[in-house]
């Protein structure tokens, strides 16, 4: 029997069942420990970046090539037909007719969902505006499973910009399928949006809004840091919160031994570099895991069994 993601579009985390999330995570783990260079043999993947994102693109293209596949595409959609007024629907129809799957990033929300309606081959969302970035969430889940041995019953603190951070929104949605509990640590102006909190309430997920990072560190298994962007505040406001959402090594003195610090990267100054050498730092391994999570997805979407 084909795996449940075979020939499916990968658009948005809420589309995934718990079993499908676990399938991707477990497959990523297998591919990390036993690399396969044959799973995309003779497959051609479209890598369509209508908006540049070097990091995500390199991670995807590495994943394709490691699995023995080939890539065509573009890194900066600003130079392509979209500028000449071609609809995304038309672009994707054509690219889909050349390739076995399309990985795409686009500056507009909903672009991947729309593309999936016009593509004859699976579409994998590499980010659509401020909406979804499912492969980031899948690599986060894989990293959490890898460091904790489970996704279940964990306590996870999200720190920083919880309002605009789409990675944080998707990850809470995904983890809420695994009976995790959350701490949301942010300035009030960047608090978790109401609609996410309402969703969590509906699912009966436990969460606590807190303003102090120090208080939660001894309580949690995962500390998920994000960047608080200066541009979101005026100067006076920023002064007030500056430094409050920065993690330094000494703050981890009372942390559980299994605590791991994650960050979607790039970091600026929200994780001091002295954290890097603590056993809690895991963000660079997390970035590396992006390749395995993307390999897992591509392999599952393009092979009946993996």
């Amino acid at each position, binding site marked *: 029997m084909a795996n449940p993601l075979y020939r499916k579009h990968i658009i948005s985390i809420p589309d995934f069942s718990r079993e499908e999330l676990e399938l991707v995570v477990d497959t990523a783990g297998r591919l990390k420990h036993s690399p396969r260079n044959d799973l995309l043999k003779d497959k051609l993947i479209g890598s369509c970046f209508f908006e540049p994102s070097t990091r995500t693109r390199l991670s995807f293209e590495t994943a394709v090539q490691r699995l023995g596949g080939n890539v065509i595409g573009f890194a900066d959609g600003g130079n392509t037909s979209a500028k000449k007024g071609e609809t995304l629907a038309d672009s994707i129809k054509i690219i889909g007719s050349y390739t076995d799957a399309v990985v795409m990033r686009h500056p507009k*929300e909903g672009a991947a969902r729309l593309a999936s*309606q016009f593509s004859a081959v699976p579409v994998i969302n590499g980010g659509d505006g*401020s*909406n979804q970035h499912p492969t980031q969430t899948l690599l986060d889940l894989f990293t959490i499973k890898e460091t904790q041995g489970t996704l279940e019953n964990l306590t996870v603190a999200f720190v920083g910009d919880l309002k605009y951070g789409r990675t944080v929104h998707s990850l809470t949605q995904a983890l809420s399928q695994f009976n995790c509990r959350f701490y949301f640590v942010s300035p009030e102006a960047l608090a978790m949006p109401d609609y996410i909190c309402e969703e969590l309430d509906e699912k009966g997920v436990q969460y606590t809004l807190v303003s102090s990072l120090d208080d939660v560190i001894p309580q949690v298994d995962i500390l998920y840091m994000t960047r608080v962007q200066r541009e979101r505040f005026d100067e006076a406001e920023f002064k007030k919160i500056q430094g409050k959402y920065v993690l330094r090594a000494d703050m981890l003195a009372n942390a559980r031994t299994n605590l791991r610090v994650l960050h979607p990267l790039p970091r600026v100054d929200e994780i001091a570099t002295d954290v890097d050498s603590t056993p809690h730092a895991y963000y660079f391994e997390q970035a590396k895991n992006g390749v395995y999570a993307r390999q897992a997805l591509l392999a599952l979407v393009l092979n009946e069994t993996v």
Partner: protein
Amino acid sequence: MQYTRTVEALKEGTVIDHLPAGQGMKILRLFKLAETGERVTVGLNLSSRHMGAKDIIKVENIALTEEQANELALFAPRATVNVIENFEVVKKHQLELPETIEGIFDCPNSNCISHGEPVKSFFYVKPTATDTKMKCKYCEKVFSKDIVAEVK
């Protein structure tokens, strides 16, 4: 009794009655009833025994479908929609909030891909205790129904 004098009886078509006063023009616009080319009669601020004031719309030769009637439920859950054939009511629609709405409203998110592409807008409708929420299928943003309905 008053509207039989102000708005003449309909031979074929649909009567949308008991709209809250002030909603008539909005519904006319949203459902593009004026663009049908059919004769449309609108009564605004008519007196109503139950509602105080109400609006009413009569469209000739067009029978509103179940689906269209349900879309009306977003704005006027207590409206009545009667389909008329040969001066007789042949169908009284029971308004029920639809689960999805396609093509009536534009997505309020200006950065949503649904604008400028060959697709109809599409929302999932979810009633909550105090409001009705609409979630765009494309950008996945959730809006209060009043925000969606104000667009255009």
